């Protein structure tokens, strides 16, 4: 674990894997909840956790480089089930890349337990990990100018659901009616870092 200073009052803590970043994020949330850590933002990402608005970054830099981070038990985290129709325009291409039928591709995706590794790109957009390496797919060579809200998509190691209509370069494999982001709801975001996610196929595609 390496802590890089970011400006005067932030630290970027680097770890070697996504799993370690998730464990560190959980540990930092725990320390904040018990009052040991005062910080404005804790932002997990692919291989890092950013602590922004720290009162004493130097102390935390030394503390975190020697800290032992326990792996949190997965059952402690919330599980969200997203109803999905595997009807995306890129499902056939993804299935072909995986060397399976479309039906089998849907079964593989729906049989995976995902974890929200981090959020970004748009409010409520979670980067979900869980697919084995052999199922990772590249982005589309040409991004679409418009992807509809609720599109379930793949890129690299991640699955994501577009919270609202936007341009996008991910491979679209399905659609969910779940509302990923609603600022009038508490909490506004259905998916937060650490949340476990399962896609549950629904009939009537």
């Amino acid at each position: 674990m390496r802590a890089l200073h970011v400006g005067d009052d932030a630290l970027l803590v680097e770890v070697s894997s996504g799993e370690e970043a998730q464990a560190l994020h959980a540990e930092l949330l725990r320390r904040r909840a018990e009052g040991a850590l005062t910080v404005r933002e804790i932002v997990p990402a692919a291989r890092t956790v950013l602590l922004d608005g720290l009162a004493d970054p130097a102390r935390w830099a030394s503390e975190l480089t020697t800290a032992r981070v326990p792996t949190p038990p997965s059952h402690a985290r919330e599980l969200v089930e997203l109803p999905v129709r595997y009807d995306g325009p890129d499902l056939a291409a993804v299935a072909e890349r995986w060397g399976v039928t479309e039906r089998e591709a849907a079964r593989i995706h729906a049989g995976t337990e995902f974890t929200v590794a981090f959020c970004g790109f748009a409010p409520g957009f979670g980067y979900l990990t869980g697919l084995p390496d052999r199922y990772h797919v590249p982005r589309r060579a040409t991004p679409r100018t418009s992807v509809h809200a609720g599109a379930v998509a793949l890129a690299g190691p991640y699955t994501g659901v577009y919270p609202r209509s936007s341009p996008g370069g991910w491979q679209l494999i399905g659609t969910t009616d779940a509302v990923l982001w609603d600022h009038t709801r508490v909490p506004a975001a259905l998916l937060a870092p650490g949340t476990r996610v399962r896609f549950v196929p629904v009939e009537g595609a």
Partner: protein
Amino acid sequence: MTDRALVVVRAGALTTVQDRGRPGYAHLGVPRSGALDAPAAALVNRLVGNPPDAAVLETTLNGCAVRPRSTVTVAVGGAPCPVSVGGRPVAWGAPVVVPAGALLEVGAATAGVRSYLAVGGGVAVEPVLGSRATDLLSGLGPAPLADGTVLPLGAPAGPPARVDGAPQPRPPAELVLRVVPGPRDDWFTARAVRDLATRAYRVSAASNRIGLRTEGPALERARPGELPSEGMVLGAVQVPPDGRPVVFLADHPTTGGYPVIAVVRAADLPAAAQALPGTPVRFVPVRRR
């Protein structure tokens, strides 16, 4: 109290509702947003007796015009500009009473970019995640003003401040940005790190609330590719593939994959909000506090 409202008569090039933003939600992909020139927004709020977190209007270059439905106290600050009520010039940077139905005109900035208009009681649009700020990256908060927009106003909290002509910094003729090197300065050549500190840059016309873009020598990378996405801070000097540094402002994305060569001191960002395209920019490396 339905008559406590502002009718937008001329929205201007880009006028948005701003307050102190919505920090604390970056982990959900929500930018902090908020007034780019925060001290100017705080000052105009103080001039009309508002709390510092009241929502104000942030104009861009050519001001705006509004008509209050009830008599209100207003103050305009930030970028200097002519201000008039019912066609008669009034003070900039001081509390002014606008009678019900009179036209308040915030003119084009004579220096700087963004003027701030505070109204007693504050702009009272519905908050989103605790803030009324318009976030142009994510679309949270009210849409930018359009001609005919009606903005509700809150009840005045206190008497206007007894300060006339409060001092405000002039918009910069040269933008000097103190930067703390890192966290990804090792992704650049030694020459690029030296270039950032010594070469002349200018504010690009492509700048906006998301970032202050610059024109100048491209910073040379020591390694190719992108980082795995990582958290971004306000003031981050991110270097996209074209090599021209971009300083992240309030509506910046919460994560990104281009390396951050340095981070601008928070105290220098209000000046960045007021730097016109073409303004010379100097990045001055400083030690971390």
